[in-house]
C-alpha cells in the first residue's frame, strides 16, 4: 500500500502559504506534515496542493482534519487544489468539503479572499 515517500514543501506568497503534498499521505506522514505546518507560520490562507499526492488513506484524511482544527485556532482559511475526482469524492464523503474550499488550479486557490 504505502509505497511512495511523502514530501511536503511550503511556499509563501505574501499572505498565502502553499503546501505542496507529494507521495503517500498516510500515518507515516504525520511528522513531516507537522513540520510543514510549523513552516506555514502566520498567514491568512493556507492552500493544500494535492496535484502530486499519489495515495491517501483514512489516517491521512485524519491528519488533514487535524490541520483544519489547528487552522481554525489561528483563524486561517484552508483551500485545496489538484484533487482528482476520486479525492474530491473522498472529501465529500468525509465532509472535509464543508470546510475546505476546493479549486481547480493554483491561481484560483491563491486568490485574495
Amino acid at each position, binding site marked *: *500500500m504505502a509505497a*511512495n*515517500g*511523502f*514530501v*511536503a*514543501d*511550503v*511556499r*509563501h*506568497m*505574501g499572505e*498565502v502559504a502553499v503546501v*505542496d503534498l*507529494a*507521495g503517500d499521505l498516510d*500515518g*507515516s506522514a504525520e511528522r*513531516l506534515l507537522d*513540520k*510543514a505546518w510549523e*513552516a506555514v507560520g502566520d498567514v491568512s490562507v493556507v492552500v493544500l496542493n*494535492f*496535484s*502530486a*499526492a*499519489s*495515495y*491517501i*488513506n*483514512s*489516517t491521512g*484524511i*485524519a491528519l488533514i*482534519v*487535524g490541520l*483544519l*482544527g*489547528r487552522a*481554525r*485556532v489561528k483563524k486561517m482559511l484552508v483551500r485545496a487544489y*489538484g*484533487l*482528482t*475526482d*476520486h*479525492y474530491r*469524492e*473522498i472529501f*465529500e*464523503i*468525509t*465532509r*472535509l468539503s*464543508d*470546510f475546505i474550499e476546493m479549486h481547480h488550479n493554483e491561481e484560483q486557490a*491563491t*486568490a*485574495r479572499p
Partner: protein
Amino acid sequence: MTDEATTAGVHKEGSQMINDESNKEASPSEAAARDAAYWANLTRSLELGEVPPEARNINVSGRRQTSPLQGFGRMWQKSYLVVLSGVEATPQEVIATWKEEFQSFWPEGNHYYGPLTGIAPGDVALLNLSMPGKLTMSTGVLVLYADEESFTFMTPEGHMFAAFITFSAFKDKDGNTAAKVHVLLRSNDPVFEIALGLFGHRKENRFWTHTMTALASHFGVKNPTVDIQLVCVDRRRQWRNAGNLRYNSALRSAAYMVASPVRALRKKSPRR
C-alpha cells in the same frame, strides 16, 4: 500577490523533491486506483441493513455521517496503543482478526451489529451501547475505509461524538507488532459535551483499554499495557453546531425506552 518569497521543504530521508521527475511516476488519476477500493462510496445518508430482532434500531438510517468538523465541543485526539510483545502475528493478521471478531473484544453490555461478512468499506453497523442509568444507547457507524492494515469508522449525526475512529496495526521500532485505536473527535452537542467532561472521557478510556487488552490477550500477550495519549487539538467549541442536539441519540434512546410499554400495548391491542 507577490512572487514566491520563501520555500521550506520537509522530506522523508532519501525521498525526492516534489519537482523532481522521479516524483511524477504516478499521476493522480493513476494513483487514485491504488486506494479507491478501500474507501466507502459517496453516500448522502446512512442506510442500515437487517439487524437481529433483539437489537434496538433507532438513530442510524437516514442520518448523515459526521467528521469532527461537524461536531460541537472541543476537538480531541486520543490514541490507545498496545504492543503485542512476543507475538508472531503480522499487522495484516491482527487486522484480519480484529475485523472478524470485532464485537468480541468490546466490554460486556455493548453490541456491534454489522454485516456478517465482516468489516468492509461502506458497511453501516448498528451500535447498542451501555450507558449510565441502565440506558442502552442506539447509534451506529459507517465503515469509511478498510484495508489490510487499518479500518476507519465515521459516526452519524446524533452519536455522542462526531469522529473518525481508526483501528490499525503496524510494526513498531523494535520490530514488534502493535495495535492502535486513534480517535479524532468532538462531542456532537452541548449535552454530550457536558457528559464528556463529567464522565465521558473516563468511560471512553475504560472502553478502549478493555478492548485493546482483550485484543492483546487474544493473541496470547500476558498482562498487556495500554498506552493512552490525549491531546486537545482545538479548545474552542463550535456554537453554530449546538443545534445538533435535535439528533442526540442518548435523549432519543431514553425517550424510546420510556415509550416502550406504550408500543407493546399498541402491538397487543387488535386493530379496529
